[in-house]
């Protein structure tokens, strides 16, 4: 029996290199179940590479070299045989909305189909549920057959969230999801995320420090490939910080 563990993700001494170029060095952190874990930091801090290492996307980048251990739900992801099952358990939302050139329906039905769901009724149910949870259903229910990539940017980003949800992930990785969408849509998605945390754990990488403040329970500050600080979000913004640079960054004095 696996004992119930409070931490969904345990990362020890994680380093990532592309070829000889190091992008992340010696990061150790734990992400608890059902928390929103924020990661902030300027460009080239290694945030995106960190996310890619979690769902083992290094498999598709020959030059990407990952050392250290990542335990997802108690299992070491480096030693997993079935990476496809791992990735099905982890939803990803990319910075720029990637509406696959499939219909809205097929975008959301893709993941269920990949894992073998064939029944139309079942697919219909999943598609509607995921689109509703991503706050997109009302806008697209009349045109499920149109091309996903023809939706507006904000709609596409909610479409990718719906797609990520269709995997029933335990963990949702959001990589600067609001970079290409308007503030109103961003707020709507943020509301969605607050509800989603009842069911899953969320890692939110963001360039907007205020977004981390609004959403994250705890926040990590990455800088130039190192994890400078992990703290309760409120501490980071108003309380005592472990490193002065964190405070300077969240107050906008550099980065």
């Amino acid at each position: 029996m696996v004992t119930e563990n409070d931490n969904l993700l345990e990362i020890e001494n994680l380093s990532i290199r592309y070829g000889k170029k190091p992008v992340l060095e010696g990061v150790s952190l734990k992400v608890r179940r059902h928390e929103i874990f924020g990661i902030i930091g300027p460009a080239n801090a290694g945030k995106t590479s960190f996310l890619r290492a979690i769902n083992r996307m290094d498999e598709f980048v020959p030059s990407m070299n990952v050392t250290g251990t990542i335990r997802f739900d108690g299992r070491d992801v480096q030693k997993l045989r079935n990476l496809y099952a791992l990735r099905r358990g982890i939803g990803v939302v990319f910075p720029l909305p990637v509406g696959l050139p499939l219909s809205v329906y097929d975008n959301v039905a893709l993941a269920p189909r990949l894992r073998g769901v064939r029944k139309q009724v079942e697919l219909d149910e999943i598609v509607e549920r995921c689109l509703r949870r991503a706050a997109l259903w009302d806008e697209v229910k009349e045109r499920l057959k149109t091309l996903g990539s023809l939706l507006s940017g904000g709609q596409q980003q909610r479409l990718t969230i719906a797609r990520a949800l269709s995997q029933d992930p335990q963990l949702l990785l959001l990589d600067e999801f609001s970079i290409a969408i308007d503030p109103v849509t961003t707020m709507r998605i943020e509301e969605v995320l607050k509800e989603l945390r009842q069911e899953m754990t969320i890692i939110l990488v963001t360039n907007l420090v205020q977004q981390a403040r609004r959403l994250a329970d705890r926040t990590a500050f990455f800088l130039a490939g190192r994890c400078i600080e992990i703290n309760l979000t409120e501490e980071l913004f108003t309380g005592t910080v472990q490193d002065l640079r964190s405070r300077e960054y969240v107050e906008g004095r550099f980065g």
Partner: protein
Amino acid sequence: MTENSPFTTTAHERRSLSQENRFRLLFLFMAVVLVLPVLGILSVLVLRGSPGISLDFLLEDPRNGMKEGGIYPALIGTLWLTSCALAVALPLGVSAAIYLTEYARDNWFTRLINLAIINLAGVPSIVHALFGVGAFVHFLQFGHSILAASCTLAVMTLPVVIIATRESLQAVPRAFRDACWSLGATRWQTIWRVVLPNSGSGILTGIILVVSRTVGETAPIMFTGAAFYMQYTPESIFDQTMALSLHLYNVSTQVNDVPKHLPFSVALTLIGVVLTMNAAAIFLRMKLRGRKKW
């Protein structure tokens, strides 16, 4: 108007404007020059060849030492050769391109394969012909047959298929693959559901090029399976066959006292076959493109 008005043209601006015009005219001229030979060829062929074209010409056997009658066996033979060559080259070439873009890592082995493809593309067709004789006619014992000739044509056109397919696969944004992989899709699921449906039009472009080249080639088939004259249309891939391109060569140079219009009519038919196949492929491509774009 004063000299300082923002709308006064300076000498430098006048120079760049006239330069702009000269380059525009130069490029326009080049583009027109490009069209002229095509128009020239087509108009000569139509003017001199069309009097000889009739349904009988297309559907009758050649008579009287190929000086009279039609070209039916050659027309059918060309269709046989082209479709068999495509049937060999497409699965091979598309699979190889998929392997090279979607699976292969960048190492000495894939670089070797790439080098081989580029070199294969540069081999003259007459060398392919000799290779075909050695490899397919004799070594694999296909004999002088449609099979041997089609295989030779296929080997010759493989590089075009591979390169065109590879380029259209690479044109599919990496982000689509990332998105699909992160849903837990295998490489093959990603290729089948996302990559191939979006590179179909590019692959078709490659096929258009291949068809045009295959239909017109003479050297590779003349030693491997095309016949000077046959009274019958082929019944299987192990028969020999006449072919339009070789027939054109024969009536132009090998047969005496051919009526003047005959070579032009054969050439017009040859071009007609190419254009018809191209038109079909372009039509298909338009349908695919209309379906989706990102």
